[in-house]
């Protein structure tokens, strides 16, 4: 961040509005994500019931959708709609924070690896190569299976610190290409320090690809969280998340056939959210490429 950031952001905002007017799929994605985020983050206001309250464990166990419970009840008679909203709040929070961690670490590491020269650059590169060789999902399963009492903060942090390698490599490549540009030599000829050249002249040029990567990363983390929770090693009951709701509803094939609503609605929520993030990422990739922004 520097004093000129407001200028840059104002420019993005102006271009953003024009772009949303033009690109229909981007508009769809933005509206969908806005709606999902608002209803989920305002869950205490939007949810009709307490997500963990069991109104009637006998009569309402696996009850189908009704007026009172529009998405039905689960095997503990809890309201699926309320759990979906609260679960969405948790799933989205996990995804946002974990992505924030990986974008921060990835950008910083990539920038350092790309901007450093000689020995330091080689070391940073080799470490990155080694990290990229670790299968992320297996690593996560091992960690979370070993530490079954992991608090949610640790869960987010570990998702974040295992998710930045590809981004770091992307940023490193960009920085390598940018540092050979004339405007970097020019900045040096004008007396800028190395730190200033990196933060003020190079990194602003990396913002666009990082934003795109972050969008795609968000979708990926949502799926990952769902997968881990479904395995029973992610977000744990009674806290609702989209992943553990699907687990609740898919204990057996029989249950899935008779009480489909328990897993169906969180499944739909995941698909819609991930598709929206991916569509937005693709649309941003197109919109933020220099050729595109050059035509005004």
């Amino acid at each position: 961040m520097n004093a000129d950031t407001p200028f840059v952001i104002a420019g993005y905002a102006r271009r953003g509005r024009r772009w949303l007017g033009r690109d229909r799929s981007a508009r769809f994605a933005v509206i969908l994500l806005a709606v999902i985020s608002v209803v989920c983050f305002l869950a205490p206001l939007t949810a009709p019931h307490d997500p963990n309250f069991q109104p009637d464990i006998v009569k309402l166990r696996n009850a189908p959708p009704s007026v009172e419970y529009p998405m039905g009840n689960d095997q503990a008679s809890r309201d699926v709609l309320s759990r979906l909203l609260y679960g969405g709040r948790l799933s989205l929070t996990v995804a946002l924070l974990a992505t924030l961690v990986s974008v921060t670490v990835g950008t910083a590491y990539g920038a350092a690896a790309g901007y450093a020269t000689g020995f330091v650059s080689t070391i940073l590169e080799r470490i990155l190569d080694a990290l990229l060789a670790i299968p992320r999902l297996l690593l996560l399963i091992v960690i979370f299976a070993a530490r079954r009492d992991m608090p949610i903060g640790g869960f987010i942090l570990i998702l974040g610190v295992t998710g930045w390698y590809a981004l770091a490599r992307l940023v490193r490549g960009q920085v390598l290409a940018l540092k050979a540009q004339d405007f970097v030599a020019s900045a040096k000829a004008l007396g800028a320090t190395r730190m200033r050249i990196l933060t003020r002249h190079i990194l602003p040029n990396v913002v666009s690809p990082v934003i795109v990567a972050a969008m795609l990363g968000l979708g990926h983390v949502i799926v990952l969280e769902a997968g881990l929770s479904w395995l029973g090693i992610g977000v744990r009951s009674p806290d609702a998340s989209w992943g553990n709701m699907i687990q609740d509803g898919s204990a057996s094939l029989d249950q899935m056939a008779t009480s489909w609503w328990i897993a169906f609605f969180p499944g739909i929520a995941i698909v819609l959210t991930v598709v929206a993030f991916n569509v937005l990422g693709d649309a941003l990739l197109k919109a933020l490429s220099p050729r595109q922004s050059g035509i005004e």
Partner: protein
Amino acid sequence: MTEPLLSVENLRTYFHGAAAVAKSVDGVSFVVNAGETVGIVGESGCGKSVTALSILRLIQPPGRIESGSRILFEGKDLVSLDDAGMRHVRGNRISMIFQEPMSALNPVFTVGDQVAEVARVHGTGSRKDAWNRAVEMLTLTGIPSPGERAKQYPHQLSGGMRQRVLIAMALMMNPALVIADEPTTALDVTIQAQILELLLDLQKRLGTSILMITHDLGVVAETATRVLVMYGGEIVEEASVRTLFDAAHHPYTEGLMNAMPQISDSRERLNVIPGTVPPPTAWPTGCRFRDRCPYSWERCEREHPPLYQISEGHTSRCHLAVEPERRAHPHLPLVEQTGAIL
């Protein structure tokens, strides 16, 4: 005699490759006085850009300024100056205008921002002051409606306008010396003349010295008072512009002059200097120009010519200075002779 503003003494900048050492600049000495415009002329690969970059110490590894080189500027030796001291010189006391105005500007910032950045790097005044001064500089460089232009991005400006922005950046801190590395090469001819005129006009007003790096003798004729001709990493001739155009001594300078197209020309093909600059990893022994020279004889192979004094302020690195009678008997240059066999 007053102290010169810049005094380069025996500058040697070598690039240490894995297989060989490229001696791109190999013992260059010259001075630039206050308020003066000095031109450095030569073809690609002669070392003129490396000389310019060396002065600001912008040489990247494996390139290195060798020990024994001295660049005296305002009482300091830039070769041994520490990083902080060097940053204070860059952009502040000596600034540089780059050849390609599009790539020398950062695509994601407005041009006003980038001009103001110079003042902010050197920590003078507030953000607002810097911006106002930037608009002032853009006005000075003759950009129409500078207030609005300052808020535009580089891609929204024409090539000539971008070069004016670079000039504004270079002059922002009112430096004592501006190094212009082929400032007009990327521009079309009509804009070239405007930019050169602007540079000279601003120089007169601000009293800045200019080191003009170019391969275009026309640019030198229009702007410089004194010219250094470089070949093979060395200065081969130094003279005032007048003397150089009236009485060039070195065969290489002669060749450059003949290669300039002229309006009155009736000849169908342009004159060229045969051959190319030898690679800086393997300069020939003796005179570095001898293979391409129409006068060379065995002395040129045996003996590396020193800079001979031709007249007051006119030096030439050619043995013709001591054996002038040989100029009467030109022959086919060596490169042409082998070319004929091939």
